[in-house]
């Protein structure tokens, strides 16, 4: 183990990795702090850059940018009441109330400090959980993989804050998109309509950039500009954080644990972790009445939780290639591109690379403290940038970045098309994250499904015969059918009460 650790240290102590990590950290902090630009978008726009980096440097940029962006989403949340990323939305009101009470330093300091602590707790969970799970995963056959992937897709639909039926439809749409191309069991052109550009299928990255970045620019065209930031001078950012850590150590630990569990669940990410932890903090607090008036307790728990989920979200990604959230979905694409194909064997064959990933997470979270403090100090200037200067540059990056993926203009067309699809879906209550997971996991689900069917000679029964497969199947089918069951229950119950009253 010591030798692997030394090898991992050697892998990350190159100038390329150090510079890439530092630059990506600054980039993640800036993008995350701009309202409307999410951590997922920051990561997606970074992918074309990773083409030109070594595998470890490429992963380093993703790790650093995503961790930093999730934290810096708290900055406009606290200062403007506009969450920078959806994960900060859970407690933006609370943080803003603290700012209005003159406690902006305490709110932002808690954001930095507890995010860093949560992030490190998440990495520890990744280090402890992943190897034993990898051993279990080695005994999985395609039947288990199929149900696991389906369960991952279903988790994404269960946690969506919209109609579960619409989320499932979004997931099917994503799977349908993944069917396009000649990469299928027959090797025949499928849904290509004779367009040669479609033979290679739809790449997940331009689709992601389209639904997350272009759709955001489209929404900006119709929504009013956020208010400008009032001038404010900050005192010491970290003052009082140690006192908070001692006072709310149990809330912090609970936030970390909840974040880790939610991160490990495929499909549920930092947004979900923040919402659940904030709600839990309020539910179990001794000072419930203070929530909403500028009380730091919820911030401690939710801040720790969302960053913990970022690292633990890599557990299903690295083990099964099933993304924990949309950021991990992008990371999986980069892992494949760099020859670090996710799977349980990664832990035995590329152990030093795995340790390098752990170390990078720890460094990113330590780096978050000084860089985060610096970011809070310059936030006033960055947040002054009007939307009319940021959005055109984002547009240009979308065009050039999607072209760079394949050196092909078709990438730009894909980005534009998915921008429209993402915009229309979001406007009508269809969660785009479910579709994105469908696109990313489609090929894997189909391979597991068809290989299993070939093995079973077309029979469905073997899908349920192995015990682990049967449990996973029951969970996935339950998740698929529960909206219908709830609907039937709600229809039947009033009828029963009506019959009882007329009797």
């Amino acid at each position, binding site marked *: 183990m010591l030798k692997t650790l030394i090898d991992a240290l050697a892998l990350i102590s190159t100038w390329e990795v150090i510079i890439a990590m530092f630059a990506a950290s600054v980039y993640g902090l800036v993008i995350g702090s701009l309202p409307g630009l999410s951590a997922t978008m920051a990561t997606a726009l970074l992918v074309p850059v990773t083409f030109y980096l070594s595998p470890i440097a490429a992963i380093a940029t993703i790790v650093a940018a995503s961790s930093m962006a999730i934290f810096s989403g708290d900055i406009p949340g606290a200062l403007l009441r*506009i969450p920078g990323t959806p994960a900060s939305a859970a407690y933006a009101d609370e943080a803003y109330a603290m700012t209005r009470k003159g406690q902006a330093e305490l709110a932002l300091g808690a954001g930095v400090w507890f995010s860093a602590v949560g992030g490190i707790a998440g990495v520890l969970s990744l280090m402890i959980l992943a190897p034993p799970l990898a051993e279990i995963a080695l005994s999985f056959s395609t039947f288990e993989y199929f149900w696991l992937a389906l369960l991952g897709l279903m988790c994404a639909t269960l946690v969506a804050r919209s109609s579960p039926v619409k989320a499932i439809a979004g997931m*099917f749409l994503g799977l349908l998109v993944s069917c396009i191309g000649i990469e299928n069991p*027959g090797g025949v052109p499928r849904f290509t309509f004779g367009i040669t550009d479609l033979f290679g299928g739809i790449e997940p990255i331009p689709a992601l950039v389209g639904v997350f970045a272009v759709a955001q620019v489209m929404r900006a065209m119709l929504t009013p500009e956020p208010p400008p930031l009032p001038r404010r001078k900050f005192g010491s950012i970290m003052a009082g954080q140690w006192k908070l850590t001692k006072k709310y150590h149990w809330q912090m630990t609970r936030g970390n644990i909840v974040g880790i569990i939610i991160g490990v669940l495929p499909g549920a990410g930092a947004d979900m972790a923040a919402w659940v932890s904030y709600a839990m903090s309020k539910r179990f607090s001794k000072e419930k009445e203070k929530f909403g008036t500028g009380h730091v307790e919820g911030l401690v728990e939710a801040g720790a939780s969302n960053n913990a989920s970022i690292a633990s979200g890599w557990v299903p990604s690295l083990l099964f290639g099933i993304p924990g959230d949309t950021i991990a979905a992008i990371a999986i694409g980069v892992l494949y591109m760099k020859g670090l194909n996710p799977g349980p064997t990664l832990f035995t064959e590329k152990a030093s690379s795995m340790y390098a990933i752990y170390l990078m997470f720890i460094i990113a979270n330590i780096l978050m403290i000084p860089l985060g403090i610096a970011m809070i100090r310059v936030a006033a200037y960055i947040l002054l940038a*009007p939307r*009319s200067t940021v959005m055109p540059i984002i*547009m*240009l990056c979308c065009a050039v970045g999607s072209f760079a993926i394949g050196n092909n203009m078709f990438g730009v067309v894909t980005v534009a098309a998915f921008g429209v699809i993402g915009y229309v879906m979001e406007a009508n209550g269809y969660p785009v994250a479910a579709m994105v997971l469908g696109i990313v996991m489609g090929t894997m689900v189909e391979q597991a499904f068809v290989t299993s069917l070939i093995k079973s000679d077309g029979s469905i029964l073997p899908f349920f015969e192995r015990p682990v497969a049967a449990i996973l199947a029951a969970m996935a089918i339950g998740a698929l059918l529960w909206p219908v069951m709830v609907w039937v229950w709600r229809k039947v119950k009033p009828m029963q009460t009506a019959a009882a009253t007329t009797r």
Partner: protein
Amino acid sequence: MRLPDSVTGSFLVVLGAAAAYGGYILPPVPGQPVGPNVFPLVIGTGLALCGLAIVFGIGHSFEEEEELVPLEDGQAAAPPPQSKLYGLRALLPPALLLFYVFAADRLGFIITAAIMVYVTSTALGAKWKLALPLAALSPFAIHLIFGKLLRVPLPAGLLPTPW
């Protein structure tokens, strides 16, 4: 762009049915019980069933209305949309991306990018004093990062960059 659930649901039914039919007519793999047709068939059927459920309002009760953040004192509310065509402004970004596809090779990256930046910036309310310098400088900055440092082949067209 908010459409009634019956419209989006019906669209999904049609799309699902078309996908299932498209899968059904694909040639099978000789000697194998399953081929490229099975997955689209399953997905198409699932999509059509979801569409039907949406048309009948199943799951609608789970939807949470988006919370509107109330405005603080002294913050001016945005003026209401002026005309029915106001919503079409949202189509400007994808239209500009398509413009990039058609114009980049002929005009070159710098000119095409400058036009895109200028149009997007003014559409978002920037005055020409801001939009013009932004359109003049940002394409060079992006070209420096992507074209020079990352070696993405960006077309020179009518105006090559000095590097």
